[in-house]
């Protein structure tokens, strides 16, 4: 039986996007027609709840449940935001969905909008995705012409306005409440929660924020049903997943596979294993802000529950592979530099601690490691936890560092004892 790939199966192979006609020919917008004609918003939410669709941005929150948090009697206008600010290092999955099939996202957004009673929606796109921006703009115009956006969609009485917002660039914009501030034309600092966005979000109104890949799944769930969606998966979380691999594997890339595919299968069968002469040492399973896993975890299923049990997070599902000729301390130093630079400076453990950690790691790489450094590093990560910070940036920064200290401790010690980087 050929593999079912609802997200990518209908994409063109020449790199061009599906236009509206091609998308419709492939069953596109039939889910929106069906929902507007035959389903109540509650029925759409229930179908998505039953499908076990979990948020693909990294946190894995149940999508149907998130939608149900907008109170029924909540005021209008209500907002929906598609998080297309793909800035997690090592992550390149939403780019494909945005560039190759923008109508799939638009239909998913219209469905999410209908379910949550949304009046106005934004696609929050990172500034560097220029090709995606052109293609989304074109698709929005085509969708409006087709009656899928704007006033009174397909004569249903439901109206849904959609705009593209192109960011000016900062990792913090990908954080839910930082993104809302950015859309309001402010610095993308996070907001204190509660109140949560479904009650008080964008411009103080009820707001739902979903990742691009999450939204792209919705038309397929509505078309084919929750049971079908669950059956695509090898685990409890429903559907397929876009998995990726980068680093020194033979064939870096992106693959739509059943949710719950093992790390081994992704890295060995799809990515072709390590490059000649190199050995696997570890992997960040889902982007920069996830804990390292090692050889003993290769048979872990990539879903939200199992990766967490193994001590990491599935995150975005795009893996970064560490080989035996690459310095793990250098790699962590690069990661912490990223987090330190992208911190918005709102919370002390983040702006102060990240800068300190960045300096310690850089010194270690340059031969200036000191006895006691490892204790200092471990001490800092204790403050980068929810409750000490407003958002997940610093907790995310803690993950690769704390796990590297656990799995690659001798490499850190060699840097300090030999007063140099042994890989240089």
């Amino acid at each position, binding site marked *: 039986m050929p593999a079912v790939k609802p997200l990518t199966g209908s994409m063109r192979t020449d790199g061009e996007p599906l236009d509206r006609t091609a998308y419709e020919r492939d069953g596109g917008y039939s889910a929106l027609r069906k929902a507007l004609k035959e389903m109540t918003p509650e029925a759409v939410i229930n179908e998505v709840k039953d499908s076990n669709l979990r948020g693909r941005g990294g946190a894995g929150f149940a999508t149907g449940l998130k939608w149900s948090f907008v109170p029924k009697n909540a005021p209008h206008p209500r907002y929906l935001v598609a998080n297309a600010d793909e800035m997690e*290092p090592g992550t390149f999955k939403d780019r494909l969905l945005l560039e190759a099939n923008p109508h799939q996202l638009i239909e998913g957004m219209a469905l999410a909008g209908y379910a949550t009673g949304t009046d106005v929606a934004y696609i929050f796109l990172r500034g560097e995705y220029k090709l995606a921006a052109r293609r989304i703009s074109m698709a929005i115009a085509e969708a409006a012409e087709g009656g899928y956006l704007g006033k009174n969609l397909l004569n249903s009485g439901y109206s849904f306005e959609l705009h593209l917002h192109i*960011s000016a660039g900062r990792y913090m914009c990908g954080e839910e409440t930082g993104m809302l501030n950015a*859309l309001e034309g*402010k610095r993308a600092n996070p907001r204190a929660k509660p109140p949560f966005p479904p009650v008080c979000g964008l411009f103080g109104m009820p707001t739902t924020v979903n990742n691009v890949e999450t939204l792209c799944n919705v038309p397929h769930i509505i078309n084919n049903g929750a049971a079908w969606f669950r059956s695509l998966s090898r685990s409890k979380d429903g559907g397929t997943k876009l998995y*990726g691999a980068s680093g020194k594997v033979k064939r870096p890339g992106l693959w739509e596979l059943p949710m719950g595919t093992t790390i081994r299968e992704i890295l060995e069968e799809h990515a072709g294993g390590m490059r000649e002469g190199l050995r696997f040492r570890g992997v960040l399973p889902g982007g*920069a802000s996830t804990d390292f896993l090692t050889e003993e975890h290769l048979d872990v299923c990539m879903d939200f529950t199992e990766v967490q049990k193994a001590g990491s997070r599935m995150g975005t599902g795009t893996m970064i592979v560490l080989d035996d000729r*690459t310095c793990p301390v250098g790699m962590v130093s*690069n990661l912490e530099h*990223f987090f330190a630079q992208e911190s*918005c400076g709102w919370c002390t453990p983040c702006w102060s601690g990240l800068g300190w950690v960045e300096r310690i790691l850089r010194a270690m790489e340059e031969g200036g490691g000191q006895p006691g450094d490892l204790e200092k590093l471990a001490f800092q990560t204790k403050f980068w936890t929810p409750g000490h910070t407003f958002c997940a940036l610093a907790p995310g920064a803690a993950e690769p560092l704390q796990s590297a200290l656990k799995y690659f401790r001798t490499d850190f010690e060699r840097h300090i004892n030999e007063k140099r980087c042994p890989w240089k």
Partner: protein
Amino acid sequence: MLTPEERAEIEAEFPHYPNRKAVSIDAMKIVQKHRGWVSDDALSDIGELLSMSASDLDGIATFYNLLFRHPVGRHVIYICDSVSCWIMGSDRQCSHLSERLKVAPGETTTDGRFTVLPIVCLGACDHAPVMMIDDDTHLDLTPEKIDRILERYT
């Protein structure tokens, strides 16, 4: 003064948001698209249109990686320095670029042709190392490939 074209483009954004302040980032991006960067004068002019102070706008501009408060070269090279590119040797590509153009990251060449800026992950990690020049992404970089690409930008 904002040009009539800049003003029209900014005003076209107003209906997308419930208030003018929300247009601040778009407005600065529009001005930068026409002038290459956002000057102090431009901040005041945008502020007048949006009923915001120039210092408010400056606080926003300096937060974002892609808004420039200094003049830049005719072409901006964004070279990825994040983790996947680093594993694939972006340090070497970056030093090659610096040597070849005789600038440190963050600087502009003396002929005003290029500004080189390190940038966070560009989301093309399966083709690392990666850079962008203006609107175009360049994949699977090697020093030789960088040399060939640079020739296309005058």
